[in-house]
């Protein structure tokens, strides 16, 4: 069993509170990602779970028992650091067996465990080398190997791939996913890259300024963001946002006035809204269709050709910018005049404080 629970966990540095009362239950065996912009507190949260950072308030429970006063080594967790933090003066084998040496394991036991892990990670030829002789990817493997040797209840990973080049990152992502399946151990993964979180995690915790914005599966976060922040953070390219004003509310639908005179009818009877209320409309690039008669008019500023599809970056009459997805073989050019139609059932609505207003209906992308 390896559940980790956070109950009303708070963290203060001096007089400055950086984590404001977080509740979280991490299930056994799951791969959960903490994701968010720099400074949101994700690393601090991880370090509090690890025991490298003191908890100012609240409780950290590992397997049901309070752990906030337990020293890091006794929590049964292992950490993979962003900068690997390998011991430069020890060989790879010594790095990996250091924890066993400290706990008094016999030489035979140490060797056996190190070899077993080295085999899984395919790094047997590296065992006698020193960190200074290894490449970035190899260093990463050693750091993971060091954690694995401890056979922890859960792996804590603090942006482990951010120091690798793009190609290596992609490769290591798959490796980590494979490792997770093979070991079936809880993994708590911190990253600022929403793509990493989306591709690897069972569940994602989106953090912003010390608060949990939303907790859910990748698809949930993508299709049903609970807040304006999550909508803008998850998914690339970033969701388009338009300022809108409520024109009228009927029993079946909502009419919104957009800047520049366009209007959109959303098939959602949100009775709580009044005429004149200001809300924000969110729509993803794949739900903006190019239509000559469309309401949103503007000019193409740039195009990104990605092969199977292309992204049109346009500027509307009122200055707002949009990104729309279209076919890869589009003939559009920068400078062209363009118009869009919004797939109104695929829109996300957010009130002034950023909360999402009910869920949009079932969605299928346009192309």
């Amino acid at each position, binding site marked *: 069993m390896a559940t980790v629970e956070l109950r009303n966990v708070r963290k203060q540095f001096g007089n400055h509170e950086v984590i404001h009362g977080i509740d979280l239950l991490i299930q056994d065996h799951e791969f959960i990602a903490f994701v968010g912009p720099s400074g949101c507190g994700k690393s601090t949260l991880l370090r509090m779970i*690890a025991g*490298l950072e003191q908890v100012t308030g609240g409780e950290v429970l590992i397997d049901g028992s309070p752990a906030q006063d337990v*020293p*890091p*080594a*006794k929590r049964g*967790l*292992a*950490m993979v*650091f962003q*900068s690997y*933090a*390998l*011991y*430069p*003066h020890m060989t790879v084998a010594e790095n990996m067996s*250091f*924890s066993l040496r*400290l*706990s008094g394991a016999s030489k035979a036991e140490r060797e056996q465990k190190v070899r077993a892990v080295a085999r899984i990670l395919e790094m047997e030829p590296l065992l006698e080398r020193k960190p200074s002789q290894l490449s970035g990817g190899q260093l990463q493997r050693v750091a993971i190997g*060091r954690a694995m040797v*401890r056979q922890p209840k859960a792996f804590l990973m603090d942006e482990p791939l951010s120091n690798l080049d793009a190609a290596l990152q992609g490769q290591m992502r798959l490796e980590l996913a494979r490792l997770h399946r093979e070991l079936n151990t809880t993994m708590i993964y911190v990253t600022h890259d929403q793509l990493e979180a989306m591709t690897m995690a069972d569940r994602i915790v989106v953090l912003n300024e010390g608060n949990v914005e939303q907790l859910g599966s990748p698809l949930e976060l993508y299709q049903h963001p609970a807040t304006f922040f999550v909508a803008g953070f998850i998914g690339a390219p970033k969701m388009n946002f338009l300022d809108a004003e409520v024109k009228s509310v009927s029993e079946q639908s909502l009419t919104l006035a957009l800047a520049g005179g366009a209007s959109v009818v959303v098939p959602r009877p949100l009775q709580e809204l009044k005429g004149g209320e200001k809300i924000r409309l969110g729509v993803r690039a794949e739900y903006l269709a190019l239509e000559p008669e469309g309401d949103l008019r503007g000019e193409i500023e740039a195009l990104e050709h990605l092969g199977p599809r292309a992204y049109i970056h346009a500027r509307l009459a009122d200055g707002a910018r949009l990104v729309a997805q279209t076919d890869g073989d589009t003939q559009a050019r920068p400078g062209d005049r363009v118009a869009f139609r919004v797939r109104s059932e695929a829109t996300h609505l957010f009130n002034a404080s950023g909360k999402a207003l009910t869920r949009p209906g079932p969605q299928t992308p346009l192309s």
Partner: protein
Amino acid sequence: MRRIRQTRWGLAVAVWAIALGMFFPILWMFLCSFKTEIAAVAVPPKLFFRPTLENYYAVLQRADYLAFARNSVLVSLGSTLLALALAIPAAYSMAFFPTRRTRDILLWMLSTKMLPAVGVLVPIYLLWRDLGLLDTVFGLILIDSISVLPIVVWMLFSFFREVPAVILEASRMDGATQTEELLHVLLPLCTPGIAATALLSIILCWNEAFWSLNLTTVKAATLTTFTASFSSPEGLFWAKLSAASTLSIAPILIFGWMSQRQMVRGLSFGAVK
């Protein structure tokens, strides 16, 4: 191409001349130590002579010279060990648990070095006299270790800071107690830096003259006191004086040459990479 070659050689000659010029006094003393006393005071000074080892024999046979040398060794090593014992924990604490006051404490420690020794000559002399520490090796060790402590802390601090804190955190995750962290990770990583610091401390204590001259007379006198006592020599002893002086400075010169790069790294505090 030829112009560059010429300037290259011109430069080499110029620098060699300067280097030899700077080293010359030491070289001259070294040569004199192999002359006979008569040859040593010959006018005009002899460049070519019959070398002899008689001076070295004479000096090493003197029981008091060996006593002075022994005192120098004891004081240098003793002060260095005491300073390291105090400084390693202090530098560790300041490097890895810095507070807002850390910078101020470091600067304050440095400022204690600015206190001119001569300003407290009188009280220290009287204190040492009353405590029975005058003319003792231990008394000299106490004073030398305090004198050298700020520099030792400063250098150790700058070397410790070069170790990324994540590595110590990793060792903590691996189960290390604070002592194990220090022994298995920090000290092995910083061994070159600690060695350089220790060597600098030995050099400073070995060459220390003010307190040796004022707090010792016969039993605990060091080589600095010994050489200073020849400030009004009679010409007849020059060759032996050269031999004694060469013996006094040789070990330190070699230590200094060996450790100079590492010492500079610590002293410059990151101003020099």
